[in-house]
């Protein structure tokens, strides 16, 4: 993975010193709360319900075991012994003390980490596929490009006070696993007919209050131009994005207002001034960064390990784990493994310090000392030998990582919700925990099959509810928690925004409603048909009919509250 050189070290160190000074001036009363807010947000620091929340960047989800150990130590020493991994592959701590934050940032810097630009109206952490570098369907490794974009966007002087936050995601595979169509800029690596590398560029995707898929502004952008083209997009956005209404300030609203062709034309005009200028990428720079992501020295292994083949029929639980949590690898004899953070009774994405230490040990023992954080809020060990899967499984079980449900209903995505987040309208975690209980029976869960269930506590959509085959959104009605349900969403190349099935459900009804949707699906599905495909085949009507009981309780009028 990428290692800092003297420049990277010096820059991150300077940022820590800068924020230390800002914090000291704030605590001394020399900066007002209004003035300090954008500064602390750019360093990942929110003021939440109970305490500040610190969001630590995990650039494109890559962690070394040494880094994860330090994250575990920070959670232990400065927080309540656990952290929350997010849909943007970052780590959130919910209880750090403000005066200690500069110290935490210094500790992060010592292992080449930071909390820079994890919040605020600037360019955020670049995200990508958790199977980067090992996916069988990979066209090109997205990580060097993510790192090049990370450096370009870090402390960018012109784009630090944008109308709103700005998220970039990159996919390097034929099947998009990075949800690039719901990002402000989505980049798809591809090769043209001449075999040259470039990007298909989507702009203006996003979830939130107005969920939209990105529009293609360039079908093939040669790789040399990626930075100048992004600069052109950002300059157009910075100048013309709306600033009068925070809910209409994302670039998607600008793209929609202008229309994609007119927006693309405006970007093209700006880009004409920058194209082929000094910011044009060089082969030397791409080679320098890519050298950090070269394939490890893989052993020559048999395609099928005899012990592994024997172990599965002998132990049903192991076979089940292999079926759900073990993924294909492009190198013969190796596999990628998901360490699930979706154990029953635990908030999705939460990991204790002890688990972070344990995951770091597993990475050292089984996967070349590296691991990834996924946008589905799990860990991935990317380079595990097939012959070692059984041993890994046994250790994963001991540490609560072996829940064999990856891709199933209870592998749900959930934001921290109203338990922690001051933006939330409703709590997410109790709904997630209740769903885990309801669907705990593994045979039933496996029979339901692949199903993405995503929960957001408010319209900001951190839980990606629009992309869930079943999406649950917390809404506020007269101070009470209600939940709106969408169905038919999906991520990937054919990304789709889910549709609302009808009026919201009370907190004690929403899990029953999900159960009724599932029963309807089981009754109506064709063989091997996933939930989302049944919804697309039949439409919403049978699900609507089933979701609402005959005599609904009186529902108070919905009040806007975000």
């Amino acid at each position, binding site marked *: 993975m990428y290692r800092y050189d003297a*420049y990277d070290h010096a820059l991150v160190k300077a940022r820590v010193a800068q924020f230390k000074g800002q914090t000291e001036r704030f605590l001394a009363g020399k900066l007002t709360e209004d003035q300090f807010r954008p500064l602390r947000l750019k360093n990942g620091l929110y003021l939440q319900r109970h305490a500040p929340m610190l969001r630590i960047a995990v650039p494109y989800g890559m962690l070394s075991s040494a880094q994860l150990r330090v994250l575990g130590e920070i959670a232990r020493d400065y927080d309540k012994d656990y952290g929350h991994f997010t849909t943007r592959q970052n780590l959130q701590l919910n209880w750090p003390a403000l005066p200690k934050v500069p110290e935490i940032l210094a500790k992060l810097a010592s292992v080449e980490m930071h909390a820079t630009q994890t919040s605020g*109206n600037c360019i955020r952490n670049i995200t990508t596929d958790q199977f980067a570098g090992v996916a069988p369907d990979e066209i090109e490794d997205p990580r060097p490009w993510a790192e090049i974009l990370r450096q370009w966007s870090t402390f960018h002087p012109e784009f630090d006070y944008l109308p709103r936050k700005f998220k970039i995601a990159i996919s390097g595979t034929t099947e998009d696993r990075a949800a690039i169509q719901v990002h402000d800029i989505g980049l798809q690596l591809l090769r043209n007919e001449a075999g040259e590398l470039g990007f298909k560029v989507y702009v203006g995707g996003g979830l939130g209050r107005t969920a939209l898929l990105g529009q293609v502004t360039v079908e093939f952008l040669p790789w040399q131009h990626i930075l100048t083209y992004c600069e052109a997009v950002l300059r157009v956005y*910075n100048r013309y994005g709306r600033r009068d209404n925070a809910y209409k300030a994302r670039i998607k609203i600008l793209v929609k207002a202008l229309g994609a062709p007119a927006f693309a034309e405006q970007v093209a005009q700006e880009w004409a001034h920058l194209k082929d200028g000094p910011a044009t990428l*060089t082969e030397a720079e791409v080679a320098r960064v890519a050298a950090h992501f070269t394939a490890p020295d893989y052993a020559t292994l048999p395609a099928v390990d005899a012990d592994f083949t024997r172990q599965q029929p002998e132990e049903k639980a192991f076979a089940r784990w292999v079926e759900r949590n073990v993924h294909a690898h492009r190198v013969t004899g190796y596999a990628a493994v998901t360490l699930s953070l979706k154990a029953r009774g635990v908030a999705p994405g939460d990991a204790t310090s002890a688990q972070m230490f344990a995951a770091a040990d597993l990475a050292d023992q089984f996967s070349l000392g590296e691991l990834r954080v996924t946008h589905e809020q799990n860990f991935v060990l990317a380079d595990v030998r097939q012959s070692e899967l059984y041993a890994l499984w046994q250790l994963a079980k001991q540490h609560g990582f072996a829940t064999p449900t990856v891709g199933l209903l209870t592998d749900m995505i959930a934001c921290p919700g109203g338990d922690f987040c001051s933006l939330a309208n409703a709590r997410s975690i109790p709904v997630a925990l209740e769903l885990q209980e309801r669907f705990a029976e593994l045979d039933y869960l496996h029979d339901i099959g692949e199903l993405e269930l995503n929960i957001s506590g408010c319209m900001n959509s951190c839980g990606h509810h629009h992309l869930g085959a079943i999406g649950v959104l917390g809404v506020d009605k007269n101070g009470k928690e209600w939940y709106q349900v969408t169905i038919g969403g999906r991520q990937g190349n054919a990304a789709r925004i889910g549709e609302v099935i009808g009026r919201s459900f009370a907190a004690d009804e929403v899990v029953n409603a999900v159960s009724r949707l599932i029963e309807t699906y089981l009754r109506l599905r064709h063989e091997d048909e996933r939930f989302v495909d049944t919804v697309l085949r039949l439409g919403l009507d049978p699900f609507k009919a089933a979701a609402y009981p005959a005599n609904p309780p009186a529902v108070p009028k919905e009040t806007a509250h975000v």
Partner: protein
Amino acid sequence: MSKLRKHIIRDQSVVVATHHAELSLAEWLPQVGAGGTAADHPPAHLPAVVLAPEDDPQVLVDATGGNVNRLTLIAIDFPKFAEGRGFSTAYLLRQRYGYKGELRAVGDIGRDHLWQLHRVGFNAFDLREGTDLYDALQAYDDFPERYQTSNDEAQPLFRRRGAAHV
């Protein structure tokens, strides 16, 4: 527009501000005449203008017959701490339109904006009331390096890496 101050930072020093930009673009345009009749004014004596966040610097180019250097002071207002358009305006004035004169940031800006304002092309700063200007001078040294190009750095770090040590 925010209150103008007696002392400003210009070219890395605290100085007394001898003149200010007080004409908005709408007030300034009639004074220089429409359609490039700015030629009526002797060179380098066009009155100073203060641009609002939404003002397009291209208007200055058109009004000066393509020579923005007939202005010697352009101010850009930041009415709010989080207003970001002026960063792009400054970059365009310097890099695209070749403006060489004083480019002054005014408004709700303080020490914490200075590094970035300087990078995109501002050389003068009328910082908000209560700012310790001598303390703010230290912000010129906030970072030892820059990853990206901007007005202060023609070459991105990746073209300079290895050429020197930090």
